[in-house]
């Protein structure tokens, strides 16, 4: 039986339109053999969590460059708990001040990727941290 491909939802929450990183990562993850669903721009946490549920993803990657992570990440994690999606790996990439990283990890974000992170590092992190599916 063929191994189930890792499914990743890439999302841009908030109003920010800088999607270069998200799109490059989407392509890199696809090239690495994952299935990638890119939500497009201006997603609310509700929209992202609903998409994650419908698409049955293993990982949610959030791209935030606007500083809105302080408000949007806690909202998203809360919604994931409400929908009992706690086994979904959540990672964040973007412009995140150092002092915010521990706060994001505390609420359950698995990793924060800052500018300059290689695509290889992100691919490897997702591969080694998604929960194996039954």
């Amino acid at each position: 039986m063929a191994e189930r491909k890792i499914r990743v939802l890439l999302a841009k929450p908030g109003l920010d339109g800088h999607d270069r990183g998200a799109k490059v990562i989407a392509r890199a993850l696809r090239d690495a053999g994952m299935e990638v669903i890119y939500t497009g721009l201006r997603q609310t946490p509700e929209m992202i969590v609903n998409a994650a549920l419908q698409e049955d993803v293993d990982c949610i990657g959030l791209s935030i460059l606007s500083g809105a992570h302080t408000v949007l990440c806690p909202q998203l994690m809360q919604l994931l708990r409400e929908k009992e999606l706690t086994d979904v790996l959540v990672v964040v990439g973007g412009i995140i001040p150092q002092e915010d990283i521990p706060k994001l990890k505390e609420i359950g974000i698995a990793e924060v990727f800052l500018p300059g992170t290689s695509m290889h590092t992100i691919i490897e992190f997702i591969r080694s941290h998604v929960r194996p599916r039954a």
Partner: protein
Amino acid sequence: MTTKETHSHVGIDVQRWEEETLNPTLQKRPERMRQFSTVSLRPIERLYTPLNVAELDYERDLGFPGEYPYTRGIYPTMYRGRLWTMRQFAGFGTAFDTNKRFKYLLEHGQTGLSVAFDLPTLMGVDADDPAAAGEVGKCGVAISSLEDMEVLFDGIPLEQVTTSMTINAPASIIFAMYLVVAEKQGADWKKISGTLQNDILKEYIAQKEWIYPPEPSMRLVVDSIVFCTRHVPRWHPISISGYHIREAGSTALQELAFTLRDGIEYVQWVIAAGLDVDEFAPQLSFFFNSHNDFFEEIAKFRAARRVWAKVMRERFGARHPQSWMCRFHTQTAGCSLTAQQPYNNVVRTALQALAAVLGGTQSLHTNSLDEALALPTEQAAQIALRTQQIIAYESGVTNTVDPLAGSYFVETLTNEMERGCWDYFDKIDAMGGMLNAIALGFPQREIHEAAYQYQQAVEAGEKIIVGVNDFVVDEEPPLPILYIDESVAEIQKERLRQLRAKRDNNRVQQTLEALKAACRGNDNTMPFIIECVRAYATLGEISSAMKEVFGDYQEPAF
């Protein structure tokens, strides 16, 4: 000796040099890389000689500064006459916070203001809208009404400073607010000057902050250009921007070609609205990125002037030399800055700024060293401004006009940039213009492809980023950064609540209805927007009124 004879001599000499001098060296010691290329992955040859520019005609292709085709600069004396405007982009938190920063920058020698708005403002959304959650005051200043704009420019005489405003989808609303503040200060609209970014095409291509679909958005841009031509003649109603196209990952050539082609589109639309090209073309301005590859950038700026001059004279038949000039603002490349070893960003920015100056920019913004981490602190912003001042006053590069002219390498790159532009123009013209090209996803795909190729070159170690994929150190002392917290959103929400309670809400409704009627018809929308602003209708209320008529836009999937 004739030029032809010189070239044949050089040709023979190059062959001799390769055989006698170069090849023995290459056999002993190969070059560092199999292939050399610019940051845009444009191949670069080992050596450039007169043969590379054999077709170059000095009088035709370069000419003199201040004369067609302006390759060497749009003014005869360039920086010997006047330095570029040092225009640092600033804005964060509330209008009160940013007003303080503006005054600080003006006291420290900055010569023009440049307003960074937060994302809700850029999207035409009020601070108390649920969509603004987490974004208020973060990436720029929060402006929801005329009241905020009055605070923003409090104590700053608008007849004396020039202001650049980075705003696009809701540009006419923010501009209307600026005009009303000027009016309240007693300033004459005919005397105020500055620049509105107001470039909606690059939003669909790269920056992605749109509200309405492309056609009504273009109408709003055209309305503002026509309005300025008649009532605010010293204002630059649009700054046609390649900056964001480059930040989205384009090559230098794509940045140049898509930006100038957007310019062509605007000129066509304004002419179609009934203006003569020479009535408005002198007020058009451009905005470019200055990235890491020093010579490629200089060539891009020089080519921009030559291509635009030809477009205006030959394609549009403009008669006035002012209409032929490509004047531009430049910002150093934000996307080149690294979160790793952030002090290195001062050096990157200095080199990029130097390229912009050698390229003949009219105005410059140097990024601050901490911008891969957060908005600039006051000290980081000061170093960025000092970088410009050191180039201006200490480096000596401002003492002569276009000092790199005649460099075989720079002239070759300039010619290649120009040729590449004409090729892209032909492609986009064949698609029926820029709106159709955008609908087909053409520029978007070209940029994405370039961004991906560059990232792969970085991953493969073919492109070195100091501190990121080479010369890496383990630990970094964290920089002090500017932190905007949620109290800004609370202050803004409370201000809006008070405003909605104290203003004449009947008048607000009447002005919004009148604006909607104008949007349904053919009247110029600017005077109607100004009336809404005078009644203290908020940014969100005005943009929603227009959205009722124009609809909104969803990006097609490519």
